[in-house]
């Protein structure tokens, strides 16, 4: 217990690893034992991470990175084993442990062969993902970033569907290209900052002093790794293949967590590396915003044409994640915190949608939309849950998607209304393809006799879906805790990268409380961009809902 109190992040990080080590010693042919142990450690991983929520201090005097742990690892190059999380990583860590526990549970009956290896790899994957969100040392970060590719490769390659070999190696190679360029970026940053340490906050803080050319080069060196991971248009082509071919749980993790590593990288590294010079910065930010807009609309349009349910949801991720990058590169507090919230939302609702496709796939072994129709008759409860997940994904007020999209749009509005106008088209298209999919699958008469007697959800499937649905409602109705957690890191990032923002805000709203304490600031009105505090959406979601 003492060890747990002082090394909570290490425990959260390596609990799954213990699980995979235990599994190594279980005989090969006892599939039930593998399942039980896998689920046990998946659930344990969630349990040990829960105390992070209430131990995380919101006190402004607390250090930004909490639960710090630092040990020498490779002194000769200055690499440390350094962990720590701020509000942004806290949310992503919790999302990871939750989705991992759920997807491990969802694999119970879907995975029939090589169960031992499946659970070992899944738990290893969890270690890699958690490590990425926790690492405070570039060397350690890079290691987790890469090591996670190997289990994912096998999850797609062994347990995937028909074109799995192609999809698996494509996923690996695509992400590797970005990673190796990022490695060079890390090294360049390391030497420009004087060498000797890989400590993230130190290196990123020193980036502000470099000359513009270096800053631009560094930004692009990191850009590819994250853009491919997110994936931003035009680097998205690996995603439909990987998502479609992966087993259900793999798709949930890919969409729910893996893609967030890209957006996390943008927030954590790319933003501080933005050039200080206003022209250079403006150029980069404009490129990013435009590419995001293209991604939103392109992803949505491609969704309309899909025959395969999983591929449709995969492309919808392109569109949704482009929303997140739009919010990030708006460089406003609203845009940033909205983006993080939207990442969580996307993890929950798209995770739920992939689980839902998995439920159908387990029953019918096809993902073609045309094979289904009128499923709401044999599967009424399933229909209800699917409806909620759809509505959450398309951004209906009272559900989580709305909060994220709304706050992102507000943050973007402060930059330019043009971007908002384009992004709104994406929302409309999103509603179109999701509802059309729902309609084709669920409504009307049962045309295919094979669908007439499909069983409704069983207890295990409820257990995977209901927590996600509850969280969707919770974030939709009362998102304030999330905004409060995000408030400080977001504020610090904006102060660093957009120093004029808070100054302009003070000038625009002299009567309001100083911007440094945004939680206490007044109720935001859309006409006064300077006053759109993150918490204002949190405290009064209902009026905004009505406005929309």
């Amino acid at each position, binding site marked *: 217990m003492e060890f747990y109190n002082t090394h909570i992040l290490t425990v959260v990080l390596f609990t799954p690893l213990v699980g995979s080590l235990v599994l190594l010693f279980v005989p090969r042919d006892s599939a039930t034992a593998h399942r039980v142990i896998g689920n046990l450690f998946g659930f344990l991983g969630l349990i040990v991470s829960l105390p992070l929520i209430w131990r995380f201090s919101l006190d402004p005097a607390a250090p930004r990175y909490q639960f710090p742990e630092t040990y020498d690892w490779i002194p000769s190059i200055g690499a440390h084993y350094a962990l720590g999380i701020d509000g942004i990583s806290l949310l992503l860590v919790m999302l990871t442990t939750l989705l991992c526990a759920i997807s491990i549970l969802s694999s119970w009956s879907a995975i029939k062969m090589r169960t031992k290896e499946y659970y070992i790899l899944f738990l290893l994957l969890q270690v890699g993902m958690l490590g990425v969100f926790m690492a405070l040392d570039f060397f350690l970060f890079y*290691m987790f970033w890469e090591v996670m590719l190997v289990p994912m490769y096998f999850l797609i390659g062994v347990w995937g569907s028909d074109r799995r070999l192609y999809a698996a190696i494509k996923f690996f190679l695509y992400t590797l290209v970005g990673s*190796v360029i990022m490695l060079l970026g890390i*090294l360049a940053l390391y030497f420009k900052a004087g060498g000797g340490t890989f400590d993230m906050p130190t290196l990123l803080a020193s980036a502000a002093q470099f000359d513009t050319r270096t800053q631009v080069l560094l930004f692009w060196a990191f850009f590819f790794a994250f853009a491919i991971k997110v994936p931003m248009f035009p680097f998205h082509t690996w995603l439909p293949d990987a998502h479609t071919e992966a087993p259900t749980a793999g798709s949930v993790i890919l969409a729910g967590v893996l893609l967030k590593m890209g957006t996390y990288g943008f927030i954590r590294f790319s933003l501080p590396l933005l050039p200080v010079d206003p022209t250079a910065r403006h150029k980069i930010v404009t490129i990013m915003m435009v590419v995001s807009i293209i991604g939103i609309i392109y992803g949505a349009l491609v969704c309309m044409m899909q025959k395969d349910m999983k591929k449709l949801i995969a492309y919808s991720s392109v569109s949704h994640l482009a929303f997140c990058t739009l919010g990030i590169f708006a460089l406003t507090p609203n845009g940033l915190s909205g983006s993080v919230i939207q990442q969580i939302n996307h993890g929950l609702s798209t995770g739920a949608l992939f689980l839902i496709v998995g439920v159908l796939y387990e029953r019918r072994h096809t993902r073609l939309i045309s094979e289904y129709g009128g499923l709401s008759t044999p599967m009424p409860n399933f229909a209800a849950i699917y409806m909620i997940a759809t509505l959450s994904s398309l951004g209906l007020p009272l559900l989580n998607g709305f909060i994220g999209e709304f706050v992102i749009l507000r943050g973007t509005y402060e930059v330019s209304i043009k971007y908002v106008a384009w992004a709104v088209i994406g929302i409309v298209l999103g509603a179109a393809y999701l509802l059309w999919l729902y309609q084709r699958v669920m409504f009307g008469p049962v045309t295919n006799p094979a669908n007439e007697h499909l069983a409704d959800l069983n207890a295990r499937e409820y257990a995977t879906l209901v927590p996600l649905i509850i969280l969707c409602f919770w974030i939709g109705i009362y998102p304030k805790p999330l905004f409060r957690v995000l408030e400080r890191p977001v504020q610090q990032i904006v102060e660093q990268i957009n120093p004029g923002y808070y100054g302009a805000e003070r000038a625009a709203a002299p009567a309001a409380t100083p911007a440094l304490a945004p939680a206490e600031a007044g109720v935001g009105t859309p006409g006064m961009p300077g006053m759109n505090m993150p918490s204002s959406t949190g405290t009064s979601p209902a009026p905004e809902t009505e406005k929309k």
Partner: protein
Amino acid sequence: MRQVFNGFQSFMQQGGGGLLLPEMMLVLFAMGILLTDYLLEARDKYFNALMAMLGVMFSAICLWQLRGAADSGPMGFSRSLLVDPFFLFFGFIFLIATALVIILSVRYLQIEDENHGEYYALMLFATVGMMFMASGYDLVVQFLGLETMAISFYVLAGFLRRDKRSNEGAVKYLLLGAFSSAILAYGFSILYGIGAMANLSSIGQTLPPRTNLDVIAVAVEARGHADLFVLLALATVGAGLFFKVAAVPFHQWAPDVYEGAPTPITAYISVASKTASFALLLRLLLTVFWPVRVDWEMLIAGVAIASLTVGNLAAITQTNVKRMLAYSSISHVGYILLGIVAAASSPLGFLTGMKGVAFYLFVYGFMTIGAFAVLIVLQRQGIIGDELDDLNGLYRRSPLSALVLLIFMLSLAGIPPLAGFVGKYFILQALIETGHNRLALFGALYIVPALYYYFRIVMHAYLYEPGNAPLPVVTIGQRVAFAVMCFVTVAAGVYPEPFVRLATYSLFFPSGFSGH
């Protein structure tokens, strides 16, 4: 035993003779094997391997005893031998590689029914040659060392007398090898000529022969860079040694020889011969050619990029695993050469670059022998077992070998947290540190095609159905070898600190050379 060691020590202190002990042990045991081989029944032939292992062990003990002396860098035999940490480091790599290959050979030779004592004796002779390549401080000694090693390898490559591919490989190796040795000898003769022009008074009281590296270095420095003779010597010596390390454009022999040679010998050529040639190359570059490093920096960079390109791209289409690994080893040479470029270009880069080169060579040995070891395990009577399809479903047939195969492949490709990644990391770090950003980009991006072909192997082993291939048998000796190689590959990746220190130790030059 204790007394024997003390005896060694006093012997060493008396004069040059002690510096030769590691090599002498190997020669002694090699002779012993040749003598006793005739007395052995066919089923007792494993005794030869035992003798060879003993020889390696004694040699290692003698080498270990030299470590105290090495700090002051004693020279023996008219300054033609130098015992320094550089030599100790490489000497241990050779001995470890030899020991691992001996362990892996026993069963292989039984299956191929070529269990002759000469095999092990030749291996020990080759090791002696390598040791002289690393410790020689005189052109003649270095050349003799190189030829001792090369001639042993020509025979070993063709050791499967009844196999056409083995014969073909051996003849190719011999013809091209002899050619390259001749070019190297030509280069050495030019260096000898340059040495004649040295002002020997600056060297010291006792006049060393004109083939001594210090003498030549003084002469080369006096002639300055862009001198015609120095450039000619550089080009010819470079061509000779690039052949030995299989760098592009002198690489054509590698795939054929790798494919034809008995698999343990393939591993041995690919690791020990390459490392020894790098030791010789480094020794020459760091002494004789160091004053004119501006002349060769770009030359090496060009060869490195060419090796990376050809090695990585040609490996993609191979269907024979040994050929694929041959091309991949060409690309590894490219990385090591990039490290040398960084080391030469600035004082800052020297330490990181050389550290990277030493670390890379050290771990390269373990992971490469490991990859070949998996093929050796798969080999069966009458079937070579080195096509990609022979690996199909290896995971079902032998999970253990499949797992170690995965580790070695990931490490060779450069995925953290394994040794291969740390090696590449140091090379890239040195390149970035010295401002060679484009070379670094090349080096980094070639990891991607490398991963692709290494994972073709993994894909066959894990994702394909096994067919009706029989279960491979892993002997106890092979298990031990696997364990050692896996341990080093994983440990040097997860906790590289001790290995980095070892690599740094090898850069301690007692002769006062400290880079720039």
